[in-house]
């Protein structure tokens, strides 16, 4: 028999219209970033505003296309390497919204910082694409590559203020620790591959469900290392150390993008990973219990450490970084029980958190002075008198983070903890609420400075930047959203639940 055999399966390359439609958001974003890149390169256009708008339009288009997919049936794409389901479509919208709003809010900031390089927007688009792919991926290799697409872009964005030492330092720290964590994740994937013979989470799950003896030490180690890689990305204690430094050093809009888009992406992927590796419904009892304990401790530690350290911070960006760690802890509460019931609220929380945190950083980027200075608490003294609306917006976002009704943060936290109580995690919830009681203190301290102290006359006080129209608009719309979700959380919750159900 000389007939040359081939491993090529042409059927994989014949895309059905449904599959094409499912892939369309990704293609649009990719195409958009390439177009934007072209505009960067071709100097004939004035790319200053054009690239921005290309990015925004692309995000909007991608978001719209994704929203069309939410109701579509779940389908595996390209050999089941990725999946288009409600979960991925929903998060696509979140990522693209974050990216688009970040782009809009960055315009004035970049002008002020003399950083108006069009690459910025391209990189934001690339990272958004990475996020989208990462959340959609089923195959861990795809997850890894998407993770790297996102990360590489973000590494660069963090270091985007190239002349600033802090920015450089943040980028290099993030890069080194991030790469190490990637390596750990990858090591886990390798072990999983050995333990199950596949890298596709769907297949892994069905394999261990069919053959419980596959849950070997090797499998457990691999699974844990893979999960750990994402626990690093979402900055849960003790894998959180990089985060405050990076958040502080990165340009304010980028930090905002990271705390929202990147965090949501990492967390969404974590959820996929946790589900795919059988946590809660496929592991042997012993492994399940041990992993549960580990998650429990990490969640508790994350909530406590994040909040407690945030208490001592005086720089707003850094404080929000620690608060972001604390929020990771709350989110983990939704994962600890290991049931689908928890994931809906996690989705909801991620969305709400994205809204309020992005808002907070947009406000910070408006407030920031050269090289993101002027973001210490003292600098906010009397802000309510100087710039009442900004102060109000920031207050809303902070109170929402503190979980005070009637804001999105409260509704989301309520639902999250509620689901945990249902799952019987009452002690953890108690740790959570006590930790969030601590958090109230530092969020309110910002309000103290803004509302209760009188303005101090600083030397460059007169040069306070003004007139960031788009950023203000973004902030305002986010305030509205914060209240809307706070008052009427039912709709978002329904979507989130449906989204999580498909996992």
């Amino acid at each position, binding site marked *: 028999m000389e007939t040359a055999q081939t491993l090529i399966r042409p059927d994989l390359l014949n895309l059905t219209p449904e599959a094409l439609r499912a892939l369309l958001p990704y293609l649009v974003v990719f195409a958009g970033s390439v177009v934007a890149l072209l505009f960067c390169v071709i100097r004939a256009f004035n790319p200053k505003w054009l690239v921005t708008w290309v990015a925004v339009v692309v995000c909007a288009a991608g978001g719209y296309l994704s929203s069309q997919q939410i109701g579509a049936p779940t389908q595996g794409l390209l050999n089941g*390497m990725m999946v288009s389901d409600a979960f991925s479509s929903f998060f696509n919208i979140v990522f693209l919204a974050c990216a688009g709003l970040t782009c809009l809010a960055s315009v004035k900031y970049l002008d002020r910082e*003399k950083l108006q390089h069009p690459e910025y927007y391209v990189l934001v688009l690339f990272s958004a694409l990475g996020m989208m792919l990462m959340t959609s991926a089923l195959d861990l290799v795809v997850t890894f590559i998407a993770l790297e697409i996102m990360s590489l872009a973000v590494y660069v964005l963090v270091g985007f203020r190239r002349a600033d030492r802090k920015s450089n330092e943040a980028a290099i720290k993030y890069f080194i620790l991030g790469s190490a964590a990637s390596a750990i994740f990858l090591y886990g994937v390798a072990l999983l591959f050995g333990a199950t*013979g596949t890298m596709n989470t769907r297949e892994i799950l069905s394999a261990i469900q069919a053959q419980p003896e596959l849950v*070997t030490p*090797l499998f457990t180690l691999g699974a844990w290392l893979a999960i750990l890689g994402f626990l690093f990305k979402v900055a849960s204690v003790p894998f959180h150390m990089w985060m405050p430094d990076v958040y502080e050093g990165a340009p304010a809009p980028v930090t905002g993008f990271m705390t929202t888009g990147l965090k949501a992406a990492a967390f969404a992927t974590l959820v996929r990973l946790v589900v795919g590796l059988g946590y809660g419904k496929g592991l042997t009892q012993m492994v399940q219990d041990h992993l549960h304990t580990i998650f429990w401790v990490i969640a508790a530690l994350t909530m406590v450490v994040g909040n407690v350290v945030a208490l001592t911070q005086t720089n707003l960006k850094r404080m929000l970084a620690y608060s972001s760690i604390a929020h990771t802890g709350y989110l983990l509460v939704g994962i600890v029980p290991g049931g689908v019931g928890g994931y809906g609220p996690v989705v909801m929380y991620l969305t709400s958190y994205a809204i309020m945190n992005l808002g907070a950083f947009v406000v910070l980027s408006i407030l920031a002075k050269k090289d993101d200075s002027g973001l210490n608490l003292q600098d906010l003294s009397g802000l309510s008198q100087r710039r009442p609306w900004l102060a109000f917006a920031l207050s809303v976002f902070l109170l929402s983070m503190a979980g005070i009704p009637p804001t999105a943060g409260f509704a989301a936290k309520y639902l999250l903890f509620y689901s945990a109580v249902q799952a019987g995690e009452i002690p953890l919830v108690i740790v959570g609420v006590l930790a969030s009681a601590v958090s109230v203190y530092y969020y309110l301290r910002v309000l103290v400075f803004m509302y209760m102290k009188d303005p101090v006359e600083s030397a460059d006080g007169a040069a306070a930047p003004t007139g960031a129209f788009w950023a203000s608009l973004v902030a305002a719309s986010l305030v509205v959203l914060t209240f809307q979700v706070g008052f009427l959380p039912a709709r978002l919750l329904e979507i989130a639940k449906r989204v999580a159900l498909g996992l």
Partner: protein
Amino acid sequence: MDLNPYFFFAFAGLAVAFALMVVLKKNPVASAFSLVMVFFCFAAIYAMMNAHLVATLQVLVYAGAIMVLFIFVIMLLAVDVESFDLGRSHRGLRVTAGVMTSTLLALFVWMFRNTSTFGKHGTHTLEQIQAVGGNTQAVSQLMFSDYILPFELTSVLLLAGIVGAVAIAKRQSARKEAK
């Protein structure tokens, strides 16, 4: 595992030795060259495992491209500073790190030793691979069908990497223009 144990242990030993040199040598250039040696050892082991394409790429991409990049940067930067031999971090950290990694290694090895069940075997037996024309053929064919998505994504990744590297490393012309 039909791996020649003598060759394997020889290359493995060499790799470990060079890896240690990467870590322990003060001079980054020495580290870099040790790393190249590690890469070569790995290539040899890959070859022994019938992963010919990977072995080749190991030499080309790692030993060739990446290491050249490293050396290039080292040279680029080393010109500017007196001493580039920074050595190691302080002792407490070193000891802790040593203890820690050894412990971790022990834990990992324990895990490996206690695993007897592995995942299901795939279809890419030696015969099958031979049938499609060898390792390189098989890998390439897979790349354009089963693994088309990650393959395409690598292109995006590289594009992103290029844009990023350019954005971050190019001379700060914009700033100067602004001034």
